């Protein structure tokens, strides 16, 4: 079974430039998450999708960040314009929908390492 796919794996841009990350979740997983991970820290949730609906985007800096999940499968996360402080690893994860006592274990992609110069 293919895992969560992300691209690109690495991205270097200058500040004020736009950047976009792409994620393809595990087939059949309804829930998709975008996280930001700074060096030496745990991931921080940016946005969570149930199918195509963003059900939790309270941590997404909406002035410069946007995300979409068309048709409830692939998703893109965009930053425009990027700032120096956005340098981090952006992780995508997917899971099946929580149902009763089933565990909605998240499966993570390899991440995109963004460097803003």
């Amino acid at each position, binding site marked *: 079974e293919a895992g969560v796919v992300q691209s690109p794996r690495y991205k270097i841009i200058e500040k004020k430039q736009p950047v976009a990350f792409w994620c393809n979740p595990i087939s059949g997983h309804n829930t998709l998450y975008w996280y930001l991970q700074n060096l030496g820290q*745990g991931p921080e949730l940016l946005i969570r999708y149930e199918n195509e609906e963003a059900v939790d985007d309270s941590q997404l800096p909406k002035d410069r960040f946007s995300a979409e999940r068309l048709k409830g499968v692939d998703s893109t996360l965009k930053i425009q314009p990027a700032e120096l402080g956005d340098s981090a690893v952006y992780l995508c994860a997917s899971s099946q929908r929580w149902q009763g006592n089933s565990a909605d274990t998240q499966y993570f992609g390899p991440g995109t390492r963004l460097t803003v110069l």
Partner: protein
Amino acid sequence: ELKVEQNPLFLSMQEGKNYTIYCNYSTTSDRLYWYRQDPGKSLESLFVLLSNGAVKQEGRLMASLDTKARLSTLHITAAVHDLSATYFCAVAHTSGTYKYIFGTGTRLKVLA
């Protein structure tokens, strides 16, 4: 506000020794997860703990959950070098606003 703390943050241990990583969280939780992350790699799910008293074991790692104390432990038995990685706990809280909060991580280094 849901907060998740791990300790220690760094752990250097000799092969063959036992040790425990602790994960404390501040409010009630539906379930607790443990993940492993190798340098430059993504997170790998290790355990999911769903109820008070739950215990899961895989190889040299054993995780337990005490919901009354809001504490989970990850115990390492007879450590080997391959266990060197960063270990994260994550707490899920789905009553009201959904929360999924990761701990600070414990960087484990097992010395040969």
